[in-house]
């Protein structure tokens, strides 16, 4: 890869990322418009009279034609002003900023735990696909994966409550990070296991062994580097979804992250909040994909990244 090629690559990806952000935000605003009900709907439940509801709608800017609303919002985005959230009464940019940090804290911890657990386990089970170790670990991984996230989160909370080994104090990230990390570790283990087994079964591995490469080096250096390729391919999606926050875990452990924010925006029919969350999600996933592709290019220089 020439440096010129790299620069073109990055520029094209950035352009694509910006287009993504634009489409997602417009799409989000449009969808909020189309969904039944708006931010003033729950005022009806509070017995607020129609005149006040109309006034509130005007104050929140919900009675503007869609294109005007879109135009105003895009103009605001240029100054990094993402509008005001009707559900929280604060600027969306502040809300998203706070929550991104909290989600990042959790996601980083979960990612580290998951990779530390899943990657080596996957390599080990992949190296001996029919062995005893693999036969034990694979069903456990699948069992963890079959567990719906909310049940897993509750299960962990109940475990923490019952045994007292883990703290479920409000600000403590350990339990939510574990709840996020376990299914992710299982995914990583499965993908890595498959890929490692394939690489080891390929002729190249046999040739390397015949050349006298010690087995551990074969496994952990040669094979793992090649096998991590499909993992890096999906890394973008994984990291992107992780950093967009996991609603189930955040809900159960009341961690103030992006997942809950988006959900509050959906329930409260809050157009700017949803658009803001979608926008930040788009930025995160584009960045994660870019990083994943670059890493893949580094891991295997034969790959022609275009």
């Amino acid at each position, binding site marked *: 890869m020439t440096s010129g090629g790299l620069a073109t690559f990055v520029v094209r990806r950035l352009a*694509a990322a910006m287009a993504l952000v634009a489409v997602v935000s417009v*799409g*989000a605003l449009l969808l909020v418009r189309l969904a039944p009900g708006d931010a003033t709907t729950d005022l009806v439940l509070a017995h607020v009279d129609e005149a006040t509801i109309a006034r509130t709608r005007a104050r929140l800017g919900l009675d503007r034609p869609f294109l005007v609303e879109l135009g105003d919002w895009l103009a605001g985005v240029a100054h990094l002003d993402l509008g005001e959230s009707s559900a929280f009464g604060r600027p969306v940019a502040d809300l998203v900023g706070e929550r991104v940090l909290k989600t990042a804290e959790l996601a980083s911890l979960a990612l580290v735990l998951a990779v530390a657990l899943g990657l080596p386990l996957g390599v080990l089970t992949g190296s001996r696909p029919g062995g005893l170790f693999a036969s034990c670990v694979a069903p456990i991984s699948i069992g963890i994966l*079959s567990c719906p996230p909310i049940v897993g989160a*509750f299960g962990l909370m109940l475990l923490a409550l019952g045994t007292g080994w883990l703290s479920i104090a409000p600000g403590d990230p350990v339990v939510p990070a574990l709840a996020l990390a376990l299914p992710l570790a299982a995914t990583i283990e499965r993908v890595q296991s498959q890929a490692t087994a394939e690489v080891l079964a390929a002729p190249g591995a046999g040739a390397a062994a015949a050349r006298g490469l010690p087995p551990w080096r074969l496994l952990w250096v040669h094979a793992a580097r090649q096998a991590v390729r499909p993992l890096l*391919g*999906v890394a973008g999606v994984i990291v*992107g979804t992780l950093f967009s926050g996991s609603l189930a875990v955040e809900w159960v452990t009341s961690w103030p992250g992006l997942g809950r924010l988006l959900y509050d925006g959906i329930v409260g029919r809050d157009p700017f909040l949803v658009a803001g969350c979608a926008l930040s999600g*788009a930025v995160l996933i584009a960045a994660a994909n870019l990083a994943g592709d670059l890493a893949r290019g580094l891991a295997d220089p034969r*790959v022609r990244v275009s």
Partner: protein
Amino acid sequence: MTSRRAGVGLLGFVAVAALCAPVLAPNPPDVPFPDRAYAPPMHVHVLAAGGLHAPFIFAQTLHDRLMREYRDDASVRHTLHWFSRGRLVSLGDDDGPLLLLGADALGRDVFARLLYGARVSLGVAALGVAGALARGTAAGGLAGSLGGAVDLALMWMADLVVVLPGAYLVLVLRGALPLRLSTGAVFWLMAALFAASAWPHVARGVRAIVAAERARDYAEAARAAGAGPLRLIGHLLPAARGFLGVETVLLLPSLLVAEATISVLGLGFPGPSPSWGGMLQEATNVSVLAGAPWLLAPAAALCVVALAVHLAAGRPMLTSSRS
């Protein structure tokens, strides 16, 4: 390859059980039995005073409704009836319902709901996975082998699908569709939604594998021999077979959860027809989970199905299609 056959056999067994639900289930799935809310599973005994008996259960009585306590009355025995009233096994008319996996919050038979629910949930999940795999493989294959603008465009679409708030799409659909939807309509709609939302993960993985394969010698050789793009893809795709097998195992549980999420947003299977996602959603209550773990039967069943798929996918074979 015994494990492979075991996996396929298990899948077949599950499919047959689901299809024969009306015969296998001791009770209809939507009838709330009075005084049976959160009833625990009944134990089938064959040993009693005086040796072996035809299988029977002890009568289950409600002891404390609020505390959800049930007792078995050891003095009253109800023998199981076989092949009566079109059902494989059941209890006599006045003996109450046979609750092999206990009852849910409304006193409905969990085992029956599990069997009937398998038809819709597994069917929708299978269809969704197939759709996602097909779409993802096509997109990933094209992106990985052709590269360039095609790659950029396809992966951009994948990102779009991941980031767009799908929940809102479901809400808009819910608002636009008529209030009353038939089970069939929901079935196809959900399968389509799954396929449309789950393909990015598959596409990214396939793309990475195909892109790496493309640079290998045999691919260069094929290109030199004049193979067109589609034929080239045909050569490269088999390398992704193993990954697709893993993806199937990964997708099945996540689609089940997606089913539950979609039903929260209002597009779930209507009314009394049970589905695994719906059953799990009703059971998600921490006080209930601790005291009535049989309500998690769908998650356990799903685990079995996922394991079966894992076994059936087999160990990674030598991808010897390349030579």
